[in-house]
């Protein structure tokens, strides 16, 4: 009696699984037909690419940014989230926000956090191409602009210390801003993302346009940040490259406690 009932439920499980598989793969096939994954297109904003981008925008972004990317004001009465206008933000902004996973926003918090991107680069390019049609804005850097081969590290360091360290910390480890906002660590940012952040000024960051920091200087700066990423810790364990606070913490925990432990050992009574 017991055995039979167990077999029956097992059979039902298989049946259900098969049905799900069928429906799922069928949906995938149909879905793939309606929105084909676009190939990366080098030519700027081909018509198909813009169409794909618009489709992606309508599905994933328009609920906050509006159907035409005009932005939506937050509705406090219904708790509806708003989003800023995307007209004129340019492809650099789209690429930065989506490729760092900040958009789409997971939760309206003090600040959008970096997380794994949910769109492929081809999809991001398509959305960027669509947003670029809404109004002129900062473009992505060209390959020559990101060619760090003969960059001047010393000058890059000076620009870094003059413009970046007050928020991002001397080693690009990030730092706190007011009201729960923060300047993120630069150690995860790609050269392209650093460039895009400078020209678009995401969240709390000011814009460093090509007039403020020239493309040549940007290149040196990015080269310096890249050098920080690979620089070995010459003095040993770096304690997060966060300055004297973590050093003090280490001193009082590992350092002094070990000496006090030795003192207790030496002072222990011989029994």
């Amino acid at each position, binding site marked *: 009696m017991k055995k039979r009932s167990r077999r029956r439920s097992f059979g039902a499980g298989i049946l259900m699984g098969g049905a799900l598989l069928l429906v799922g793969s069928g949906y995938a096939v149909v879905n793939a037909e309606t929105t084909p994954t676009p190939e990366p297109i080098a030519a700027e904003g081909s018509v198909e690419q813009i169409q794909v981008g618009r489709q992606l925008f309508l599905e994933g972004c328009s609920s906050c940014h509006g159907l035409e990317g005009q932005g939506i004001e937050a509705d406090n009465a219904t708790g509806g989230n708003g989003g800023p206008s995307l007209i004129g933000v340019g492809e650099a902004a789209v690429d930065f926000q989506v490729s760092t996973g900040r958009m789409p926003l997971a939760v309206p918090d003090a600040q959008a956090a970096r997380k794994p991107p949910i769109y492929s680069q081809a999809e991001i390019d398509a959305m960027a191409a669509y947003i670029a049609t809404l109004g002129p804005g900062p473009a992505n850097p060209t390959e020559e602009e990101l060619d760090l081969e003969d960059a001047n590290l*010393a000058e890059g360091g000076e620009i870094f210390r003059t413009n970046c*360290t007050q928020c991002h910390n001397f080693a690009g480890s990030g730092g706190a*801003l007011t009201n729960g906002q923060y300047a993120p660590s630069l150690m995860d940012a790609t050269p392209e993302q650093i460039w895009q952040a400078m020209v678009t000024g995401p969240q709390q960051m000011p814009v460093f346009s090509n007039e403020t920091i020239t493309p040549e200087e940007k290149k040196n700066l990015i080269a310096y940040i890249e050098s920080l990423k690979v620089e070995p810790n010459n003095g040993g364990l770096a304690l997060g490259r966060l300055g004297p606070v973590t050093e003090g913490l280490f001193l009082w925990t590992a350092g002094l406690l070990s000496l006090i432990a030795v003192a207790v050992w030496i002072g222990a009574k011989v029994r």
Partner: protein
Amino acid sequence: MSATVKTAGKSVRWVDDRLASSNFLKRSMGKVFPEHWSFMLGEIALYSFIVVLLSGVYLTLFFKPSMVEIVYNGSYVPLKGVEMSEAYASTLDISFDIRGGLLMRQVHHWGALFFIAAISVHLCRVFFTGAFRKPREMNWVIGVGLLTMALLAGFAGYSLPDDLLSGTGLRIAQGIMLSIPLVGTYLSFFVFGGEFPGTDFVSRLYAVHILLVPGLILALLTAHLIMVWYQKHTQFPGPGRTNENVVGYRLMPIYMAKAGGFFFVVFGVITLISGLVTINPIWLYGPYTPDQVTAGSQPDWYIGWLEGALRMMPNVEWVIFGYTISWNILVPAVIIPGIVFTLMGLYPWIEQWATGDKSEHHLLDRPRNAPVRTALGAMALSFYILLWIGGGNDLIASFFDLSINAITWFLRIAIFVVPPLVFIATKRICLGLQRRDRDKLLHGMETGNILRLPHGEFIEIHAPISDEEKAVLMSKPDRIPLPAPEEMDENGVRQPGARMHRLRAKLSNFYYADNIPLPTREELEAAEAHLRHEVEEAAPVMEEDRRLVPAHDGSVLHDPLNDDK
């Protein structure tokens, strides 16, 4: 006589033939010191100071205390071609181009952090055990002086490399000078030789850092040790230990070996940490220019509490007749440390005056036996720690995903609320421990052995405590608050200074009134008789029934099922 003592005697004779100091040396070598691990905290400070001196000498061979602007051309590529002061460039050279330089820098810096940390815990030990009481008040003051000098030496050293972090620290120091009414601007111009930063401070701080302050530290240190030597070391209460003797081991050979060995352990641990863990990576900070600053700009840990005070203080400024009074800097950076160090230095006299206790003390207090002092100390520590947290508020905010504003507001309130709560809690804990001590004296130790008597009653068997423990517990001094003064004398005339006396009686009450008195002799005798009776009562039952069943927690239960067997 052992071989070591013979050798010692020989070397003493050799020296004595030349210096005629045999009496002093003979006495010194045989001097007795009491034993306790906490008496070695000061040793850690002493040894790390020696490490700092040695490594510092090495650094002076290569450091150039000059603010002449040069173009760096050393081997650290990211700074090649950058304009900087010679001080900063030579620190880079020490770090990258001089053999052993980076290790020495890190030994020097870690050693300095150890030095001040060890002073701090040593200070806590002296405070909480009442070792500062008469006749050692002067040595307490010297200790406070040593701490101040150590802070100054640390800050001057932190400012020498002329990197971005040290310059930022100096800028804050200059801001603090400016906040002092009337003399502030003059002081700042005097210290920096004109406008900040000028071209003088490195060479000036260098003299302070390598000559003036270390010289003062050495002098104070010598006085500190001489006084310990002549006044003899305090000891914890125990069997045979009184206010008139010192129980312990002789300097030679026991403490020579222990202290010598401990020196090498301290040296070794500091060197090991310096070899493995970065401290102050000045090459990442870059050279100082006043228009740059970095997130995570913090002083070393020992200035952290002042940084915290500065960060927590609301922005209050008064403008009087066109002159600004910056309470926002004056209060946290000048007034608070002023009060803290004054109270610290005067504490032995404050307690003496409040309690009227002017007798000599060579036996230490167990912290619980001085509940108010212990609670005051804990309160001061909580105040310090809250300020300390404030100094790292930005890192705490980014680490724990908090708002820096919320942390600051929390601390602004907590700094007034938490220390009193800590006072109350510590005092209650101390009094609780006193009660337990009294219970132990009266009822003995709980053995965990439960016994069922023939008529069915369960009792727990108590065992008398060891003589050693009894000596410790009985050492508790009986402290009675000063009586309230007579307002009028016998002729009905108001006593002079009656108000002062009344205040003093109140303070003494505050210190001593809640103390749990030791049991009297009668109580002790009665308790002893009771304990004897209990053991006697239990003995025949124990004898009769050997089948005691161990319970799950290790105690022993009488097994009723096996009663008949």
